[in-house]
């Protein structure tokens, strides 16, 4: 009887060890839900919140009403003025651009090589003129009548961060600054920052 109990105990211990050793299989989660990982940097959910808070302010401003809507803008590449090289600037920019575009108030040019979202196809489509491989009726012609529209405003963005520590705890706060320039006058017509995202960790 005693021997039997010992065997059972050994079996239970082994089972426990096997269960502990098993890795949890990956599972799908809501990317911004309660199970989303919170790190010290800018997480996926943070990126979306940054973009949402910023576009809400922009779209409620009367600054863009002076233009015939939708106004054409160039979107400049985001400047990273933080020590975090892995900032998800592309995720933030995608949400900002798509939200502004969907609003019907602002559109972006894809024709400029130095702007974010450059599409080389705009220029290449015009280089097909006189190429016998292409039906010339369907080729985008160059010239005044078919000229590409130039942007009236430019959207500039910059990631900023502040680091604080009291020896025991550390805080990192991120925000996105955006300013919009009228390209004719050079005046800044709108400027604002996103909702700040602050992270607290231990040293």
């Amino acid at each position, binding site marked *: 009887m005693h021997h039997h109990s010992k065997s059972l105990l050994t079996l239970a211990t082994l089972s426990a060890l096997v269960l502990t050793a098993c890795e949890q299989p990956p599972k799908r989660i809501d990317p911004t839900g309660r199970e989303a990982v919170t790190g010290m940097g800018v997480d996926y*959910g943070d990126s979306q919140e940054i973009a949402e808070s910023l576009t809400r302010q922009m779209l409620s401003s009367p600054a863009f009403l002076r233009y015939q809507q939708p106004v054409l803008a160039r979107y400049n590449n985001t400047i990273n003025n933080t020590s975090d090289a892995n900032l998800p600037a592309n995720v933030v920019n995608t949400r900002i651009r798509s939200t502004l575009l*969907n*609003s019907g108030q602002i559109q972006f040019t894809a024709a400029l090589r130095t702007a974010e979202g450059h599409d080389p196809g705009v220029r290449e489509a015009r280089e097909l003129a006189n190429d016998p491989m292409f039906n010339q009726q369907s080729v985008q012609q160059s010239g005044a009548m078919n000229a590409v529209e130039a942007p009236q405003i430019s959207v500039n963005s910059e990631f900023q961060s502040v680091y604080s520590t009291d020896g025991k705890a550390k805080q990192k706060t991120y925000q996105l600054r955006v300013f919009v320039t009228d390209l004719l006058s050079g005046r800044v017509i709108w400027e604002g920052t996103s909702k700040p995202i602050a992270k607290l960790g231990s040293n």
Partner: protein
Amino acid sequence: MIQIIQPQTHARINTVGAALIALAAGTTLLVGCKATNTVSSNRPGVQPSVVDMNYKVNNAFLETELRVVSAYEQVRNGLTFVQINVRNEGAGDLWYMWQVVWTDRNGMRIPIEPVIWTREVLAERQEGMIEFAAPNMNAYDWRVTLEKWERK
């Protein structure tokens, strides 16, 4: 920092009982320390709630902590902007998340991805605002879901 000191005159009270009373009082005071007070104007003409809300409570426990006070709407530049005022009625800080879905006049969801949870925090008795804008001019109605943010 608040300390509870047992006065000498109460030395006859059972020691365990006194400790429990002190602990309860201390807890109450500490929780009370995190509460907020609010000052606001009584400006005439500001309505308590402009939007006729349908507040569907699936979680009565959450309602006692996070209460929806009122909702406002305004059209700016052709887009509907919404502000929902909420209040933390529970004890201590309340971390919560909210999500909004917009629909058109046919009740169809405006296809915007990703639908995100936005995180907010309110101190005890603090009032806060949930703010969001319609994605485009076809967006007609909205539905906001509130959830407590408790890390698993």
